[in-house]
């Protein structure tokens, strides 16, 4: 199979996915849920850069998601009512947070890395919980408005959905660019064999830190969009269960595939919403599903798709 054929098929798939994304709010249970799904898909993609492409099991990504959400919300309420500026601020602060956490934890490996990121995220959580003057504490940061961008009024859920879609679309393009760049290839090389990458002369820790910061940046964007979607920032956006959720989305979707974790996010949020309308034991069912996914299909959703369509090759 030659390369143009692969690209052609990819283009068709990409267009189909985009079409689905554009039509999604019309067949999703409700518009705000479609937006939430997009946001978590973005968050899962950002997380996959760290977990899937670099092999770092971070358990503290709620920190960057929450940091983005709070910064965006506080910026709009206290600094200047501009969505774009606020989102940018959220991204920058999250990236700075990721830089700090990453700098302190990346040299720790394996389970120590996982738990030290968790510890940092818990600190952010308790700071937000305590600093009620700034964050609203347990009540959350209430009443975040959605100021219009120029003449674009974002108060309608439908408009906001397309705005979020645009943000996610651009982020995914950048994400694809990152993983396919020499930088991305190096990361995967480090993941596969750290010692070899080191002996070739790569500064492994610096590579990891950079990707950690990029991931923090996009997690912050996801958080900022979440603040806009909800019109407030819940304290729960910093809770460790959010970190857990994004890990689960990545695994269920298929790590290291960029799109897999996005599918995982879609599947999990959609299922949780639908199941919780029928029964109060949704967490029991979700638990069973997680267990089944480990025992049954470890490649995740992406793995199933690929098994059926082997023609889409793994590397591009």
């Amino acid at each position: 199979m030659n390369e143009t054929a692969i690209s052609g098929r990819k283009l068709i798939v990409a267009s189909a996915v985009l079409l689905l994304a554009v039509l999604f709010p019309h067949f999703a249970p409700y518009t705000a849920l479609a937006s939430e799904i997009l946001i978590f898909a973005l968050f899962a993609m950002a997380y996959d850069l760290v977990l899937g492409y670099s092999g770092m099991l971070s358990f503290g990504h709620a920190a960057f998601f929450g940091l983005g959400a709070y910064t965006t919300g506080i910026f709009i309420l206290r600094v200047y009512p501009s969505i774009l500026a606020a989102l940018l601020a959220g991204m920058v602060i999250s990236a700075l947070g990721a830089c700090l956490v990453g700098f302190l934890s990346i040299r720790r490996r394996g389970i120590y890395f996982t738990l030290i990121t968790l510890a940092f995220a818990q600190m952010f959580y308790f700071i937000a919980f305590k600093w009620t003057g700034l964050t609203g504490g347990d009540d959350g940061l209430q009443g975040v408005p959605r100021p219009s961008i120029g003449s674009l009024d974002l108060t309608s859920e439908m408009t906001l959905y397309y705005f979020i879609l645009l943000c996610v679309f651009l982020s995914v393009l950048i994400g694809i660019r990152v993983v396919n760049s020499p930088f991305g290839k190096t990361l995967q090389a480090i993941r596969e064999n750290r010692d070899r990458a080191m002996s070739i002369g790569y500064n492994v820790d610096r590579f990891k830190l950079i990707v950690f910061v990029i991931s923090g940046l996009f997690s912050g964007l996801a958080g900022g969009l979440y603040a806009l979607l909800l019109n407030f920032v819940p304290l729960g956006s910093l809770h460790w269960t959010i970190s857990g959720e994004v890990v689960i989305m990545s695994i269920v979707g298929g790590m290291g595939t960029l799109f897999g974790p996005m599918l995982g996010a879609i599947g999990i949020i959609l299922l949780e919403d639908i199941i919780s309308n029928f029964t109060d034991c949704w967490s029991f069912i979700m638990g069973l599903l997680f267990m089944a996914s480990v025992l049954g299909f470890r490649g995740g959703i992406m793995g199933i798709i690929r098994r059926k369509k082997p023609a889409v090759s793994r590397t591009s």
Partner: protein
Amino acid sequence: MNAQLVLTQLFNGLILGSIYVLLSLGLSIIFGMLGVINFAHGAFYMLGAYVAYTIVTYVFPNFWLALFLAPIIMALFGAACEFFLLRRLYKLPIIYNVLFTFGLMLVFQDSMRMIFGSMGVPFNTPESLVGAVNLGFTYYPTYRLFMIIVTALCSLGVWLFLTRTRLGAIIRAGTDNSAMVDALGINISRIFTLVFALGIGLAGLAGVLAAPIQNVTHLMGMDFLIDCFVVVVIGGMGSIAGSIIGGLIVGQIIAAGIIIWPPIANTLIYLFMATFLLIRPRGLFGREGFHE
């Protein structure tokens, strides 16, 4: 702040620490031997409390019987979980058992909610241990003193078992290098089941012991789980001594935080853990290259 309060807090830290010790011991040997980060460990602890409640309420109203039976039942249940489920995870990257045990946790918690309701169940201190003992500086509840003694004895027992018996030696060797033990012709999979059962039995024991002083609800293990991770990290992954000392340290830190400045009591252990790891990257007794 007075001396009485500080001394009492020291004891309270010891109580909290002893629950941490029981839980982290299991968490740590399971991780060391099986390479499984058991996210369901807090849920097993919770199940222990519910099993004890069931025994006391529906089978025979005697706390001592529950204290004896519940850990055994939990150990058997743990063995079954290992044999039928966790066994399939050993060859997989660690991330999969995080997801699996997370799922297990949700299933256990929600099952208890469905059976016993979300309000929790009543669990009273056994009649013979109600009241307080005069320690000279304060009156301290008898039941709490009893808890300290039981956990001390159990920790000692586990310690002796692991250091003085042949089986213990195999487990310690397996924690270091399970392939090596396997190569020596020892049936490693049976040892795995045993280790898991032991860990879950200890978690169950912690659950029974904590039931009279805690509210028994389906979420009671959630808070403890994250704290126990902190203990295990401070003590050093897979280290038995580390779990015991780490548990006691964390118990004292939380107790001290309450005296010093209550608002930071929550944050203090994370702050401590982060700083500690910067100085000692593998905790107190962690070894280089171990599950890294």
